[in-house]
C-alpha cells in the first residue's frame, strides 16, 4: 500500500501544517525535558529548540528544529528556518553533551537555513560548516531523526549522526523540490516532477545508505497518533543508545567518520 504513495505526496504529508513537530515528540518521548536557551553570542533562535531530557535514568541532550503549529508560532519560529545563532546554540549544547557524557538526539525538520541579510552577515555558511566539523568527532553517541522536511545544509547541520533515522513520510534532500526545479530547469512549478527525481523519500534514502532506518508511521501518517509515533521513536532511541554506548569512544567516532567518508 504505502509504496504507492508518490514522492510528491510524501512532500505534501511532510509539510502538513498539523504534522507533529519536534516539541510534540519531545514531550511524548522524554520523561523530563527542560528547554534551555541562547547561543551566548547573539540571541536565542526559536527555530531550534535545545535542552536536556531523560528517559528513565538515561539523560540526553536534545536539539530539534522547530516549526510553528499555527501562524503566530510560525512567525515566532521563523517557519523553522534557523539563523546562524540557532546552529551555534545547537553546537553549544552538543559540546555540553560531550562534557557531561550525554547522548545527543536531534530532530530534523526544516525547509532550510534562513536566507536573509542578517544570516549572511553573521556567517550562516560558517555556522553550518562548524557544526558539521564538530559533530564529526563529538565524543558521545548522536542519533538524528528526520521527522518532517529535511532540506539542505540547514538540515544536515544537526544531522551528522552515528545513526540517522527517518519517519516513513519524512523527506530529506539537497534543496526543496521547488528550489531544485528552479535551479535545474529554471521553473519552480515543476516541483512535483523534481520530487520524483530527487530520491528524497525515506525508502530511497535507505537504499542510498544516507539513512539507517525508516520508522513506520501509525496508520500511514504520524499525525493520526502522536503518542504511538513517539513510542516507536522512543523504543529505537533507547535501543540504539544502548548499542552505541557499548562501543568505546574511539571506535564510535571512527565509525562515524567512515560512515560519512563512504558517501
Amino acid at each position, binding site marked *: 500500500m504505502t509504496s504507492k504513495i508518490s514522492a510528491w505526496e510524501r512532500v505534501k504529508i511532510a509539510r502538513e501544517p498539523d504534522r507533529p513537530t519536534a516539541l510534540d515528540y519531545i514531550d511524548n518521548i522524554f520523561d523530563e525535558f527542560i528547554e534551555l536557551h541562547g547561543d551566548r553570542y547573539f540571541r536565542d533562535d526559536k527555530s531550534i529548540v535545545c535542552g536536556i531530557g531523560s528517559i528513565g535514568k538515561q539523560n540526553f541532550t536534545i536539539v530539534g528544529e522547530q516549526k510553528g503549529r499555527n501562524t503566530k508560532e510560525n512567525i515566532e519560529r521563523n517557519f523553522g528556518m534557523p539563523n546562524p545563532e540557532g546552529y551555534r546554540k545547537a553546537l553549544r549544547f552538543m559540546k555540553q553533551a560531550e562534557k557531561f557524557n550525554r547522548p545527543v538526539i536531534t530532530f530534523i525538520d526544516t525547509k532550510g537555513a534562513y536566507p536573509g541579510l542578517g544570516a549572511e552577515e553573521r556567517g550562516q555558511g560558517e555556522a553550518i560548516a562548524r557544526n558539521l566539523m564538530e559533530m564529526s568527532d563529538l565524543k558521545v553517541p548522536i542519533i538524528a531523526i528526520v521527522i518532517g522536511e529535511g532540506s539542505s545544509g540547514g538540515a544536515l547541520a544537526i544531522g551528522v549522526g552515528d545513526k540517522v533515522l527517518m519517519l516513513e513520510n519524512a523527506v530529506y534532500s539537497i534543496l526543496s523540490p521547488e528550489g531544485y526545479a528552479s535551479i535545474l530547469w529554471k521553473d519552480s512549478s515543476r516541483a512535483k516532477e523534481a520530487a520524483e527525481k530527487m530520491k528524497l523519500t525515506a525508502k530511497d*534514502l535507505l537504499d542510498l545508505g544516507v539513512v539507517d532506518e525508516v520508522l513506520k508511521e501509525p496508520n500511514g501518517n504520524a499525525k493520526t497518533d502522536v503518542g504511538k509515533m513517539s513510542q516507536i521513536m522512543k523504543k529505537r532511541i533507547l535501543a540504539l543508545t544502548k548499542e552505541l554506548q557499548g562501543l568505546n569512544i574511539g571506535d564510535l567516532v571512527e565509525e562515524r567518520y567512515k560512515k560519512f567518508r563512504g558517501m
Partner: protein
Amino acid sequence: MVIDKIKKRIEYDVENDNQEKEHRSDIPVGMWVKCSKCKEILYKDDLHKNYSICPNCGNHFRLSSRRRIDQIIDKFTFEEFDLSNESSNPLGMNDYVKKLDALREKTGLDEAVKCGIGNINSEKVVICVMDSNFMMGSMGKVVGEKITYSIEKAIQLHLPVIIFCASGGARMQEGIVSLMQMAKTSAAVQKLNKAGNLYISVLTDPTYGGVTASFASLGDIILAEPGAMVGFAGPRVIKQTIGEDLPEGFQTSEFLLEHGFVDKVVNRKEMKETLYKLLLLHKGGESR
C-alpha cells in the same frame, strides 16, 4: 581588413559577455575581452600578464585551475594526484552524464577540482584548486572525494593544505549525495585539525552554498581575493525572501572581512608571497 576582424572579435566577445551576464568567466574565446566591471576592452595577453586582473580597474577575472596553479606553484613541481574517480550519478539522470562528458571534452578537466602536491617557493604543500569552468565548480561526489583524499594525504605526509575555493555550491544533479559531501569534507578537516596540520582556505569568485557551508569556511586561515562574491544563500534567493534590494557590496570579500569571516583580502599578485609567508610562520608547529 585586420581592423575589421578585430572589431568583429570585440563584438563577439562583448556579445559573449552579455550572454553570460554577471558571470565573469575566465576569458572567452578571441584575443580581446571586456572587463565586466569597468567595461574596458582588454587585450588578452596583457590581461594574462597581469595575473588576469583588469589593468584598468583591478577587477580579478575568474581563473582556470591551470592558470591558478601556474601562478601559485613553482614551475614543474605540481604533481596531480592520480585518482581514477568514476563519475557518480545517484539520481540516474541521463543528460547529466552527457553534460559531464561534453564538459570534459571542452575543458580538458576531469572534474571541478584539481588536486595534487606542489611547491610554493620550495615549500611543499597539498593544493586543491576548484574550477568554475566545470559545472560552476559545484561539489558532487567526485569533488568531495578529491578534497577528502587530499586532506587525508596531507595528514599522512605531514603537509599543509591550501584549497582555492570557487563553487556555486553542492551539485544539484547528484541530489542528497552532494549534500553528504559537506559532512564528508568537514569531517576530514576535523581530522586535519587533530593532526595539527595547517589549512589555508582561499575564497575566490564565486564561493557559495554547500562549499561555503563546509570546508571553505573551516580554514585555520581564510584568505579571499578582492571583490569575490562569497555567501551561503545566493543573492537572488535572499532578495526574493526579504523582498528588498541588497545593499551595495553585500557578500563581497570585503563584506566578509568587515563581518569577521575572512582573515585577509589579498590581491592576486601578492597571493603566492602571502601564502609563502604564512607557511613559514607555521613551520615547526605541524611537524613533530
